């Protein structure tokens, strides 16, 4: 075989190898991303969820039936933060006062979730 052809073939093979590697990794990341998106989609797409969350009551706004709570991580929904949640019934907040450490049940289809139960822990 002519040497230049051999060299050209070799380089072509190398280029193909690099290209294949690039495409392979690209496809892999694309697949992973797709799976991630699918998983997120399932979480978002109207499935009812339920969490038990620990927190501290920071404020109570009875007029609009809202409790503001500094809470821990809510897995799959939101990180730890201070945030207002609506209660499912008007009487629910009466069991607790500002500054109480609490454990509460959060239920609903995100982002429409409500507190269905709350109790003092200390």
């Amino acid at each position, binding site marked *: 075989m002519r040497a230049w052809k051999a060299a050209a073939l070799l380089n072509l093979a190398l280029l193909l190898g690099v290209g294949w590697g690039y495409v392979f990794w690209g496809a892999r990341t694309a697949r992973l991303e797709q799976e991630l998106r699918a998983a997120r989609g399932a979480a978002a797409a109207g499935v009812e969820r339920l969490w038990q969350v620990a927190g501290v009551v920071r404020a109570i706004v009875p007029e609009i039936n809202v409790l503001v709570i500094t809470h*821990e991580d809510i897995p799959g929904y939101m990180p730890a933060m201070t945030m207002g949640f609506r209660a499912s019934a008007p009487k629910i907040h009466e069991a607790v006062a500002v*500054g109480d450490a609490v454990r509460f049940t959060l239920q609903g289809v995100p982002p429409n979730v409500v507190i269905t139960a709350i109790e003092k822990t200390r």
Partner: protein
Amino acid sequence: MIALEVLVRWAHLALSVLLVGTAVSILLAGRSDRPTALGWETRMLDACRGLVVLAFAAGVAVLLLQTALLEGRRAAALDPGALRRVLLETRGGHVWLVRHGLLLLLAAFLAVPLDVRRRVDWRAARGETALLGLAALGAGAAAGHAAALPGALAAIATDTVHVLAAGAWVGGLLPLALLLRRAGRAEGADARPLAVLAARRFSRLALACVLALVASGSVIAWAQVGSVAGLVGTAYGRLLLGKLALLAPILALAALNRRRHLPALGGEALRVGRPAMRRLARFVAGEAALALAVLGLAATMGFTPPAAHAEPDWPFAFRLSLETLADAPARAARALVGSQVLVLGAVAALAALVVRRARWPLLGGALVVLGAGAAIALPPLAIDAYPTTYVRPAVPYQAASIVAGAARYREHCAVCHGPTGAGDGPGGLRLARPPADLRAPHTGQHTAGDLFWWITRGIPRAGMPAFGATLAAEERWDVINYVRALSAAHAARNMGPTVEPDRAWLVAPDFAYAVGPTPARTLKDYRGRRVVLLTLYALPGSRPRLAQLADLYGSLTALGAEVVAVPTDAAPDALRRLGAAPRILFPVVTEGAADIVAAYRMLAAAPHAELLIDRQGYVRAIGRGAGLAAAEPNALLAEIQELNAEKVPAPAPEEHVH
């Protein structure tokens, strides 16, 4: 084990470099059909075949050794499972696979007999050899120290340039010497024109390679060493110095060859050229031998932690520092005079390079003047230094460490240095020299490593005892953090509630806290994101101000500020005590308050205090007293806007004190 690792890595690097250099020098010499030249080319191709095999074998040895080291047991080197893990799951393994795949390809390519009678074919075949060799050598940079740097891609590219330039230059020396030797023999006359041509071309390539090496080497050294202490105080830095020391004679030889021996080849080929050619061959071979030693150092540096990540061990009893001139006009004047003399010497040296006549006397004079300048300028800059001078504190500058240090300080140091560090303790009265005022700028000019040395070893001639045996190393660092906080507090005593634009100097000690059941956060989490108004409060006095802050909270958040309120009594039920009205929604610390209060009270000793901390982590303003509530509430928003408007933020402070 280390000797073995050095040997194996050096062998692998040297063989790969020789392979690249041989392939490149064949290409450089060009095609020739003279018997001697053909003989050389055949020999060099044979050498390439041997080198590929040897480089591959050495590479396998490196892999086995690396596996044994990573797994922490010798037997792992021959354990297929361990080898597969290293190859498939580490970055080094991936790079190894790519490089050795390329070497295998090259071996196969060299094994195939190719018809190279035509010029294109010759070029394609030899070019391909060089290309595969260069690729296999250069790819190694992707697994070196560079890959660990931020902005790895540029660092890897720089490393690649460095190693390829080294390969083409250093590796080509030996083949060139062989060609020159063959052509220098009586029966090698037919190859002499080729040898002369090759030597000229090589000389040009070598110059380009040396320039590339110096440029890329400087960039790499800056990133991996970065300081004088790193250069003279760490294994990596010392290896680099050794490399430079070996490089100097190589460059001198190269310059000699380029300016003396190469032009001498220009004579009539038959007679004048021969001795000159043989001399050049000898000198080039000498260069090659030194260069192989440099490769040994380079291979060792490859697995030595970069200086920037090692603790330097300062070898001298002094260091130079401009800070010594701060309030010493006489020393400053002397340093200034000396620096002018140095400039004069530098000008003379430059002139010696440019002017031809009287070059040597001029250069001698320049050296004398430079020496004199250094003798005048440097002594005033010298300041005592110790082996630990540049060691980084093992404990970061954090509230918890300061508090622990304060306890140790009260226990061991306050007798002499006084409760506030002013040097007025009762224990100092009977001493020959009064204990130092630890808040004075003098102490501030010394590095944390200096303090560590003094506290560990004591200062015998002044009566300062040693604590190396009484306090654990971490406790000593705690004390140092406390001493730094003492002088920071002293300097901050006049800081007021208004921000001084573009003057960030007071580092806010980091701290960790939690609100209720939420995961712990740190002040540092706000770096680059939020301005923090750290509010130390005491009920009931602080209530009106807290109500005002609660009111303002919406505007504060909109301006990118967060309020972190810390009860000075560190009550765990602080939230309940604050009660339902007003509605306070900013974080109120329920865990970690005690340390925060103890550390920050040093900066602001009022029952109610507010510290405005900018996005880089500097305290920029301190408000004291609950009377702040009486002030115009918008004043606070204005201060924060002032911070938001700052164009060139100060660099974020380091985690550790200096």
